[in-house]
């Protein structure tokens, strides 16, 4: 088992701006860390640096107590599961799983027991004699997982391992991976696009954007206490509404709403207000002191028990998640209310969170 530490790690490909301009991140021993972020933000690059498949341009990368900047991949004692499985097409399932052990010249008998044990855990026992071409996608994925498992490495690395599977299999494999981690508690780094995967698997999640680390934390911290507009907009589905508001000194206002607030003195005149769709309620049922907002309905998405109501007024666009009780039609005007403590404030320029002492500061992390 080992912890992983990035210390001001820079990755730059020749003739292009730095892909990772300077990353500080530490993965604790035995932790399941998920890397998420938009496409092209450098998740794979970061992961491949841990594996040793990409060199580190500057900074230090530690695995356990070793500085591994110059250690070749085979000596880092990490195992990696690739998006396309990367199974050797000319070898049987057994040979695929045994390959790493054979390279390390382990005794035949030991290889056999290890592979068979892993195959049993993953339900591959009947398939050991087949070649990858004769397996389904899910089976291939399990072989790839098995190949990583038999080596019993210090670190597991996953690069979007489930993205080629259909939704149902994905849920199932997600369960498998979670179970395996609970069982063996090996330090793992898991790259994904999928928020749900990140939320369910990750003990902690690191959100990257353009190679920069936006925030690290447990799923709940990231959801309830985002540090910046990017994290706030990234977590949750549908994402948080971020609307531009004017600072009137004692209240915030725009075309659809007005929120009286204390402690706004000294803040810039233009701010961003964040409201989660699930925190908006029908005005009729809400406490009288909650601020109201009125806007025209642009579109309604019905999800059964709830519906997503898209609102628009001038430049302002919002989504509300409301119980599916009343039929609503596009073009109607609707009045909603929200708890001011559930609103988030961001600086319009730096996009950073502004934490007020009263009353937004005291807002409970939502949910």
């Amino acid at each position: 088992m080992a912890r992983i530490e990035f210390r001001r790690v820079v990755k730059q490909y020749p003739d292009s701006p730095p892909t990772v301009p300077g990353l500080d991140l530490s993965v604790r021993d035995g932790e399941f860390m998920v890397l998420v972020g938009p496409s092209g933000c450098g998740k794979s690059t970061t992961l491949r640096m841990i594996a040793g498949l990409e060199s580190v341009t500057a900074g230090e990368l530690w695995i356990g107590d070793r500085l591994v900047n110059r250690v070749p991949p085979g000596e880092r004692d990490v195992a990696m599961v690739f998006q396309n499985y990367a199974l050797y097409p000319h070898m049987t399932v057994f040979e695929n799983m045994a390959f790493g052990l054979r390279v390390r010249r382990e005794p035949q008998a030991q290889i056999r027991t290890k592979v068979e044990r892993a195959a049993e855990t993953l339900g591959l026992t009947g398939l050991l004699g087949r070649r990858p071409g004769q397996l389904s996608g899910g089976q291939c994925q399990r072989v790839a997982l098995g190949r990583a498992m038999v080596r019993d490495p210090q670190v597991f690395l996953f690069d979007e391992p489930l993205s080629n599977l259909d939704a149902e299999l994905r849920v199932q494999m997600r369960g498998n991976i979670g179970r395996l981690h609970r069982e063996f508690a090996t330090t793992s780094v898991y790259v994904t696009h999928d928020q749900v995967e990140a939320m369910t698997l990750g003990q902690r999640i690191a959100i990257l954007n353009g190679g920069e680390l936006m925030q690290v934390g447990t799923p709940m911290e990231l959801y309830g206490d985002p540090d910046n507009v990017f994290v706030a907009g990234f977590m949750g589905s549908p994402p948080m509404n971020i609307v531009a508001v004017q600072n009137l000194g004692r209240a915030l206002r725009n075309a659809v709403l007005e929120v009286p607030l204390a402690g706004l003195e000294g803040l810039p005149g233009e701010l961003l207000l964040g409201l989660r769709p699930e925190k908006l309620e029908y005005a009729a049922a809400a406490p009288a002191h909650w601020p109201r907002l009125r806007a025209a309905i642009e579109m309604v998405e019905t999800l059964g028990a709830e519906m997503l109501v898209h609102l628009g007024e001038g430049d302002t666009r919002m989504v509300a998640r409301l119980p599916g009780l009343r039929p609503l039609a596009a073009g109607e005007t609707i009045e909603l209310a929200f708890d001011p403590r559930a609103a988030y404030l961001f600086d319009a320029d730096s996009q950073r969170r502004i934490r007020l002492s009263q009353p937004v500061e005291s807002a409970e992390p939502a949910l």
Partner: protein
Amino acid sequence: MIETSATRLLGQVFLLLLALVAQLVYAQPREELLLWHGYRGEERRALEQLLEDYNRNQPDARVKALAVPFGSFADKLSAALPRGQGPDLFIFGHDRIGGWARAGNTVAPVDDLVPARVLARFPPSLVEAMRFEGRLYGLPFNFKSTALIYNRALVRHAPETTDELLALARARTDRRRGRFGLAYSYTEPFFHGALLNSFGSGPFDADGRLALDSPGNVRSLEQLARWVREEGILPEEPNSTLVTNLFNQGRAAMVISGPWLLGEISEGIDYAVAPLPQNSESGRPLAPWVAVEGLFLSPWSGRQQAALGLMNYLTGERAALHMAMAGGQLPANLNAYTHPEVARDANTMAFRRQLETAVPIPNLPQMTLLWKPLEKALNKVVKGSASPAGELQRLQREIRRDVANLQAAGDRAGRPRSIPAWAWLGLALLALAALSPALRRRRRIAAAWREHRTAYVYILPAMLGMLLLVFFPLLYGFLLSFTDTTLLNENTPFLSRWQGLGNYASILGDWNFWYGEGAGRSINYDNFYWTLLVTICWTAGNVVLSVGLALVLALALDKPILGRTWFRLLLILPWAIPNYITALVWKGMFHPQFGVVNQALQVVGLAPVAWFDSVGASFMTGLVTNVWLSIPFMMVVILGGLQSIPRDLYEAARVEGAGRWCQFRAITLPLLKPVLVPAIILSVVWTFNMFNVIYLVSDGAPAGANDILITKAFRIGFEKYQYAYAAAYSMVILALLFAYAMWQMRVSRTLEAAR
């Protein structure tokens, strides 16, 4: 709609073809005389001018000339004439007269048709060259012999004797600087004629019997060997290009060559021609072979009188003068040389004087069989790997046997044979066997025809082409292999040549692995099994080396190294050059004296290698050339294969701790197999039959030891003229390749199944 129009179109094309064929077969009686010749350039222009002039004055006997490419001229003649086709008259060398006369129906005797007045135009030796077994077969038109051509900056007066020539040549030779006193293609029998004939004997005795090992012939070889090996006045591995280059660079003081060289001499070289000197060792002049071009009459010509009129005109004085002055020829009509304009040209007159001592090439049919074996023998002798007497005795025995074979076949040709009953029976059975599946499935065939008629109509032209160009020749070769067809009996009825499995028996049952006895024993390089062994070594060596090297290069170029695109381009470039040119370049590079390979060896301080003298070294030359030629293809194929291997397999293996070698063995090689296996199969088949490289680079040297099956078959067919034997040889090659293909298919199928 489409179907009917396609069918109609095809029908029209078919009719057109029929009409064409009919026209070819039932050619209408020609009004014009047809003359075939092999001239190009100024000779052709001069001849055509003469014919124009003739046509103007003789409107009722118009002549049409056809210039036939020289390389195929002889074959065209011997294919067309015996079947009553071809020209009314033709111009050709006199050395084939014997063969034509023996074969019959090829050339008409003219002794009764030509008045003595006409014959008086030519020197007796040239008229004699046109005679065979007492009959005159044509009129001499012009002659070509070699003479001494010398650089006047290096040689003041032409030597009078060979002793003088030797002394002069020694003084002008500086081997280190690549300068030679004398240069000529001395290993070609045509050029060696000068020495050979100066001892008076020649290849045949007075009765026309083969006498290669006569003391005079042996002495001529001894003299040549001394010139080459002891005096060192001659360059090694000579050929006409080398001789021309040496002379043009002023590095050869004297050369022995013919009038054809004069046109190629550089501006700056001041040269002169002289008759060859007296041979001090025999007391007689060096007497070069002279090749006489004659005008011959087809026995089928319907207009003999008109043809004779043309022959008379072309050998007349006016025509002779024109051919000399405009065509650069040496006319056989000697009156031309008294004309002041011709007489003023010292070079022409020197060749004319050379005619006094020159000897016409014997026109006996056996002569054709002599050239190549004699060249091989000359090569061996000048390289010291055989003694003149011993080699000529061996050659005498070999050629006697070949001649006896040909003669026996020719003699039998007279006796007509009836077709044996079993042959008919066999044919009938075969036909039945071929037809029975078709009959059994006639319904399905008819249905398939109805359903896919358009498709069948579309492939019909290609099928016809295949039938005509592939299957028919194959079948013909197959049938030919059961006969004893040779140059001498190819025009006799097919069945009279039938001899069953004789050729196969003598190829496969050839257990003569050795020549001679005891210490003088040497491998018989003409043995089929030796050639097979060489072919297998050749194929295996080439495939292993070219695939191995191509793999290394492809692996190197698969990495993103600097300048990769340029390297790839460079390595693929040899592919863009026709392979025979590459082969010739390599042959030049392996030249023992002037080749860059030996020069490089010497720069490094190593001894030069006589590349074509030993079996191993000579094998290497072919191997290197062919590997060089095969690498680009192999490399492209392997690069393609490498690029189809997913990168992440290597990454997975690296993470699992596999080193480079382990990655190569566990991933690259197995995943490359699908492209490697077909590439190797192709390469085996190509190399097995790689005629060009062997023929052009080592030419089987030494003494045919490095011939592979296909070049051996060529030699048997076109140097020994044993056509049927060559056909049987080719069938054996085909069978070997077929067996290999079957085996290969089995192997790859089991490989496939194992996946």
